[in-house]
């Protein structure tokens, strides 16, 4: 199954290999480098809550020793040729990426295969990785932004849902993770079916196809991924985290949004662009930073994931400006629900979404990321052809309706951390 598509200078190909790996590929000779991205359904959604952080830990430690090589031997192979690669575990998926010169692609693909298929989880590397993760978690405990983020996720999603906790886990669970946990998780969930690999740059397709076809050849198909589709909590909550030694408050206001496949994904994306993202942070930036000078940053984002989504506004403000900032954000939400956006705003948002596409596809890594995204959300190899039409089909009325349907200020939760009284 090969579908050539000609879009501007992008000529992506898609192929499902016999082992189940979906390969997307775009060849270009403009630079001698290659960028690769990959994904497989082995994120924290696969782990029990009492082992929070397991998927992330496995993702981190894969490259730190295989049954054939020590960690430093792997690094020597990669760094001797000026390549770099990374593996990680997120919420829905585990991921990997690599950059190398085209001439070294076979070496990097072989090493990636070894790392993904045959990790050894050596004890010293486990303890080294654990120390690093615990350091990151301690730093989060000292970060106003991370503390507020954590609080808002707990308010937005029901207990036990993978979106309700960060994929990195927490101190208690990470301290308790052991070798058997890593081995079992890897044995069950790291496999070719469900894996996506995208490559862009100066590559030889036959070489890539030949190498990837051999990945995880003898491995059984993992159990299907449960659906975690959920309507985020609708009850407004408010959490204040006093951190008296800090200079500024990080505040977050958030409410339920829509998952990526929802028909309102695009209109809500455009509502958010106008409200808190486009230009210098949209209407929120204009009102709160530019007109009132209350914050260095105030912006919003609309996040749409596989199973649910959320709308979030963030600001960093002085403690005395917290209430005014919250009210200013709420006021802008009320306005965008009540009034049509202007013709100019509609045109700006439309032109931004269409015009930014060539910029996203400017580098090999940008192309590889774009291809991964289209495959992950099953948008189709011809998505780039259909996308401009979908954006232009939106109307101001449609945007207002989406705001009314999905952005209810009465359902917003608020979290803030900084020099505040309890």
């Amino acid at each position, binding site marked *: 199954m090969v579908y050539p598509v000609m879009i*501007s*200078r992008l000529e992506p190909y898609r192929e499902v290999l016999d082992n189940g790996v979906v390969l997307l590929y775009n060849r270009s000779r*403009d*630079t001698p*480098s290659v960028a690769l991205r990959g994904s497989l359904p082995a994120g924290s959604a696969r782990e029990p809550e009492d082992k929070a952080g397991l998927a992330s830990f496995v993702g981190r430690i894969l490259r730190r020793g295989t049954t054939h090589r020590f*960690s*430093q031997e792997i*690094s020597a192979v*990669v*760094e*001797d*040729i*000026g*390549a*770099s690669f*990374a593996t990680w575990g997120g919420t829905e998926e585990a991921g990997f990426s690599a*950059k*190398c*010169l085209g001439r070294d692609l076979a070496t990097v693909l072989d090493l990636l295969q070894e790392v993904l298929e045959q990790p050894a989880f050596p004890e010293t590397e486990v*303890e*080294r990785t654990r*120390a*690093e993760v615990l*350091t990151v978690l*301690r730093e989060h405990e*000292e*970060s*106003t932004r991370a503390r507020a983020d954590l609080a808002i996720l707990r308010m937005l999603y029901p207990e036990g849902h993978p979106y309700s906790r960060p994929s990195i886990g927490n101190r208690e669970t990470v301290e308790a993770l052991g070798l058997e946990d890593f081995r079992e998780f890897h044995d069950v969930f790291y496999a070719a079916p469900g894996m996506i690999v995208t490559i862009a740059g100066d590559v030889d397709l036959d070489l890539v196809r030949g190498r990837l076809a051999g990945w995880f050849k003898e491995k059984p198909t993992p159990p299907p991924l449960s659906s975690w589709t959920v309507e985020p909590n609708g009850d407004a909550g408010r959490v204040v985290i006093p951190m008296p*030694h*800090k*200079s*500024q408050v*990080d505040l977050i206001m958030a409410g339920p949004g829509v998952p990526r496949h929802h028909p309102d994904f695009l209109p809500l994306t455009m509502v958010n662009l106008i409200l808190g993202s*486009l*230009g*210098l942070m949209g209407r929120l930036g*204009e009102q709160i930073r*530019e*007109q009132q*000078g*209350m914050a*260095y940053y105030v912006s919003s984002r609309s996040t749409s994931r596989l199973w649910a989504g959320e709308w979030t506004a963030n600001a*960093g*403000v*002085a403690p005395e400006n917290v209430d005014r900032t919250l009210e200013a954000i709420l006021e802008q939400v009320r306005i965008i629900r009540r009034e049509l956006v202007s013709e100019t705003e509609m*045109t*700006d948002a439309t*032109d*931004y*979404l269409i*015009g*930014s*596409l*060539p*910029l996203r*596809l*400017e*580098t*090999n*890594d940008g192309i590889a990321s774009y291809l991964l995204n289209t495959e992950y959300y099953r948008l189709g190899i011809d998505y780039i052809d259909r996308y401009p039409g979908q954006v232009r089909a939106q109307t101001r009325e449609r945007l207002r309706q989406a705001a009314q349907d999905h952005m209810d200020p009465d359902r917003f939760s608020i979290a803030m951390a900084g020099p505040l009284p309890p």
Partner: protein
Amino acid sequence: MPDVLEAQLQNGLRVLIRESHAAPVVSCWAGYRVGARNERPGITGASHWVEHMSFKGSARLGKGDIFRFTARHGGTNNGFTTDDLTLYYETLPSAQLDTALLIESERMGYALFDADETEKERTVILAERSGAENNPHFELSERMGETVFLEHPYRWPVIGFREDLERMTREDLYTHYRTYYAPNNAVVAVVGDVDPPAVLEEIRRYFEPIPAGGTPPPVEGAEPPQTEERRLEVRKPGASAYVQIAYHTPGLGHPDFYPLLMADALLSGGKSVSWGGGGYMGRTARLYPALVHSSLAVSAGSAFRFTLDPYVFSLSMTVRQGVDANRAEQVLLEVVEGLAANPPSDAELSRVRRQTEAQFAYSRDGVTSQAFALLFFDLLDHWSFVDRHLERLAQVTPADVARVAATYFRPENRTVGWFIPS
């Protein structure tokens, strides 16, 4: 290396244009030789504040238009202030280059510095500083600057001291702007899907009417030689013990510069000379095995920057929980200062040369990165400097590295700053 069309307008503005047809996009950068280095007590932070004000309206652009016009075409834009330079860019679909030229010519010649806008921006910048103060390491970095440099203006932070930000006037800022935002103190670089001669004509049309300015005043504050070790300590709530170490070094044109750059690569891997790059390549360098792999630290790195005046070779390390910080410091110093007695093998040198070569190739992926490199090196020296980068590194011998290590990595030339979590 594709050709660069190089020109100087009658008002002294240097212009660099390169064709790159990999994607239908163009990146336009404008840069000025002004930064914290050109400030004095009382107006620290002026360069950064001027950067903010340059987005606030000019003769032909209203406040917010720069972000609005760029976003409208799907583009990206930003501004950056460093110790030495202030840089701006827009990356846009190539048909929209005029938008970028309008923005940058207005910024160079006709910014308004409205008094009300200046006051609103004061609170925004104070909020930006408060946000930075939330980071436990900010105070250490600020105090390191003042301890390492006793006379040279590299001693103050780019964002400026709080008391100066509270007192600086609109006139201070406008004077700073008029002194340094002159075509004869600036470079414009354009890389993309364009016809260079036609672009040069457009640049003449936009920029030639801007009159040349006077010669910017010389930077005052010759740094006296350091004769003994300096130490400082910051105790605040935080996650981990963290150290910064700085050794005074010579500047860009000095014969020891490239051997020091090689020492940096030997200690923590080959690095990119531009925007983007291939990621971290330091696991096989000297610091990682000695400190991270040996479980003393969770991270350790080195940095050596291209600057206008002699700067520092710096090191940083986050100590692993439970490890004696003094012991970790001792090992770090042994590795760095031990380079003199333990120069690199040919194999080590070859590896970091291959890494640097690959990083160089990655930095050529994308017009934004290419335009940045042209502009940055032309402001420091000449754009072609970057073309000779690999050749200069290739000429460094093990004896050169040993010599510069013996010359600069000495106890009496170092400043050691500790962050101790309380």
